[in-house]
């Protein structure tokens, strides 16, 4: 048992080290872009995981939160010249509040009714922003190019800075989730996921905890919105509230495996490069073959690997554990 834990820990440490050091040697911007997308979606996947994996409310409308967050910071910046980092925090807080408010009615729903309600929410928000003159309506907002640097949250010569900001976000959220997993909050979340009615009978205020989960998840997703806004320096409803963002987030979680910390990171680290590389490789033929492969890939995952990659990891772990035990038994004999 201990041996397995130790190898896992060593592997994890290697992973962290690799994620920090290797990118320093990557000079190709396109690869840097893929790295940025990987960390961004890893964070988004974790945020999804809080409601989807731990509380068991499947959301396919995270783009609603993502878009709101991106608009909060961009609007503050364009209209009032507020520093994007303050906008980043504001995006987190306002989106969390927004998540809480829409959560009030929506958390009553279960299963696919909830899932479809989140799709509906995403679509409604998109239409509202498309018609809201104040924030540029369908034209969106352009963030002026400024001096590059950490203070302005804009980098032009390299994308690595974005990557490291994303990595720090990911680190913080991982620490938070580790803490959450061991706290009362985490147990309550899981209790609600396993059986809502029983949890409620045990005296857990399920509505309150669901709302907490949604608010946290929305807040983090909103901050990611700011991140993408600063990355592309442009926000537009069609772009920030895109249904594909919601779907990709959910797919990453499924692919990686839900209800644990590592899943979404693994999912993002494998799914996004595949999507980007197939496009770069075959997208220019214009035949849709890259998206065909992507679609087929998703189907194959759902059919053959429905527990996600973490399912594979767990299987390997179980097998090594068995081998270790067998080896011990052998030694004892």
């Amino acid at each position: 048992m201990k041996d397995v834990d130790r190898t896992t820990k060593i592997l994890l440490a290697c992973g962290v080290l690799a994620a920090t050091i290797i990118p320093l040697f990557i000079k190709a911007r396109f690869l840097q872009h893929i790295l940025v997308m990987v960390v961004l979606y890893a964070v988004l996947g974790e945020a999804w995981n809080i409601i989807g994996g731990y509380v068991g409310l499947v959301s396919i409308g995270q783009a609603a939160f993502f878009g709101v967050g991106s608009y909060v910071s961009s609007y503050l910046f364009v209209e009032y010249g507020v520093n994007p980092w303050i906008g980043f925090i504001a995006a987190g807080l306002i989106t969390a509040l927004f998540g809480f408010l829409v959560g009030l009615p929506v958390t009553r729903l279960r299963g696919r009714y909830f899932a479809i309600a989140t799709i509906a929410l995403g679509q409604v928000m998109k239409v509202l922003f498309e018609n809201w003159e104040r924030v540029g309506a369908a034209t969106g907002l352009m963030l002026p190019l400024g001096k590059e640097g950490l203070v302005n949250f804009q980098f032009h010569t390299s994308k690595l800075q974005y990557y490291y900001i994303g990595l720090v976000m990911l680190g913080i959220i991982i620490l938070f989730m580790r803490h959450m997993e061991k706290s009362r909050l985490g147990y309550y979340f899981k209790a609600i996921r396993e059986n809502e009615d029983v949890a409620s009978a045990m005296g857990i205020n399920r509505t309150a905890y669901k709302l907490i989960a949604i608010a946290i998840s929305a807040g983090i997703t909103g901050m990611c919105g700011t991140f993408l806004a600063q990355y592309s320096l442009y926000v537009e409803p069609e772009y920030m509230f895109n249904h594909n963002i919601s779907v990709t987030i959910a797919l990453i979680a499924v692919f990686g495996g839900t209800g644990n910390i590592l899943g979404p990171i693994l999912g993002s680290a494998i799914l996004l490069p595949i999507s980007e590389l197939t496009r770069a490789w075959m997208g220019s033929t214009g035949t849709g073959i890259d998206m065909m492969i992507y679609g087929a890939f998703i189907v194959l995952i759902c059919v053959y690997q429905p527990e996600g990659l973490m399912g594979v990891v767990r299987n390997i772990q179980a097998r090594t554990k068995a081998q270790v035990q067998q080896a011990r038994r052998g030694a004892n004999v």
Partner: protein
Amino acid sequence: MYLQLTVGGLLLGCIYGLVAMGLSLIYGVMGIVNFAHGAFVMVAMYASFWLNRFIGIDPILSSPLIALLMFFFGVIVYHAVIGKVLEGPFLARLLVTFGLSIFLINCAQFLWSPDYRMVENPIFRGIRMVGPVFIEVPKLMASIGSLIVAGLIYWFVRKTKTGLAIQAISLDRMAASLMGIDIERLNGYAFGLGCACAGAAGAFLAEFYYIFPDVGTMFGLVALVAVALGGFGSTEGALIGAILIGIIETVGGFMVGSEFKYALVFLAYLVIVIVRPRGLLGWGAD
């Protein structure tokens, strides 16, 4: 003016309804939310188009054939993909059809290019004036077809042995299996039947609507909301939900502003499920 809008909404709703009923049937029996339903409609539209192009059958006349073809297509898809995830976790069941949809849409682009196509010289075309209201003949035909299919499904599910067995599965899978019902086979039939509905819808649409790889997406999404609105698992509910959505879209779009019409549709869904968390006529598990 409002009469015209309501009639337009009604016709549109019937077409959504045809797509929605298949969706609801599939859900009711095996608990799969089929996000690829719009893509199935698209496949059926292309099938009608090619039949028309090469053999010269009008899409509305070929609709039974298309429905039959789509039935087999559905059975194959069920046994190749859907049946294998039924026992899997909720998320895999929810997302497998997303993948299927992306795959089918891009397959169509690969095979038939992204060009827009339209059936030439359909039999049913033109406009009839009924009092002060303009009615498009092909839309009227599609709506009538939709009601006929609704009647057929009603009859099938309630009066035939297979239909009753399918109903038994959706009520209690375990008990049905104990009573000797071959669940795997019947699931396949039910999925095929759902696809046949999409097939009929596609054939009717092909009579008057243009065809391109992404054409089904919006129909699929609206139908999904219609099903959820009517309550998952209830085909009657799906039809009612769809008609309601059609009317909200046209009348509501006219009154509030057409740029908001899809927001209204989704908002209506949110309001209804908040009041009735299982939709208008929904039952069964979540």
